[in-house]
């Protein structure tokens, strides 16, 4: 349904914010799923950090490069980063109402989350494999 005399306008402009795209609750649902996963994962993370308190670099390196701690870290990082990205998205959508600023803030949120998440994952993998 495209206006012939206004060819630059896509259908997107017409439908944006006007109705259901049938994916409206996925963010809410993924937030619940990641928070459920983070209950055991964050407890495991705290215990893992406690096991490294006051240890030398060699001990910390050895601990983090073992399969089970490394897997725990990867799961914790993955769930946390996705969870926090969704949470910050909600906050931005609640408080930033100017369209342009909102889009930039959402983009910055995504870039930050991906960058921090990949830094953590890369470091854990490097500890295991390098």
């Amino acid at each position, binding site marked *: 349904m495209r206006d012939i005399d206004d060819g630059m306008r896509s259908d997107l402009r017409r439908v944006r914010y006007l109705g259901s795209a049938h994916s409206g609750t996925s963010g809410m649902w993924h937030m619940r799923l990641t928070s459920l996963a*983070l209950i055991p994962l964050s407890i495991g993370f705290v215990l893992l950090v*406690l096991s490294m308190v006051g240890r030398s670099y060699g001990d910390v390196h050895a601990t983090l490069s073992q399969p089970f701690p490394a897997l725990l870290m990867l799961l914790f990082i993955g769930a946390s980063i996705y969870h926090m990205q969704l949470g910050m998205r909600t906050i931005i959508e609640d408080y930033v109402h100017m369209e342009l600023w909102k889009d930039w803030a959402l983009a910055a949120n995504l870039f930050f989350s991906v960058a921090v998440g990949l830094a953590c994952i890369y470091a854990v993998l490097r500890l295991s494999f390098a």
Partner: protein
Amino acid sequence: MPELPSSDAPPRKRPLSPHLQVYRPVLTMVMSITHRITGIALYAGTLLLAWFLMAAATDARSFATAAWVFNSILGQVVLFGFTWAMFHHLLGGVRHAMWDSGFGMDDPEREWLSQASLGGGIALTLLVWAIAFFLR
């Protein structure tokens, strides 16, 4: 026929949805606000985790620098706050999960749940730091 307001008339004052400034602070509201604030703090705090992991993955010298910062007084204060934010947000999430499933929303229960998650977050933080203190 009723007279319609002309478009250049000053806009009539319409009732606004009440917001934070008109409410007396109550515990459930304060807990809701701190849930969001601790979430933002944890968001920023992932930079510390990334730094710690990247330093450990780089070499002993980078790790020593990160360890020095985390062991400084300011570093310890930040990590203590991070620990509290994590437990507060964790227990707040459990509380919200209960409310999501329709449990504990009535008068005594919701207050009790809020007090329990507030006290529990502080207690777990102190417990973890007590253990860390004896381990170091």
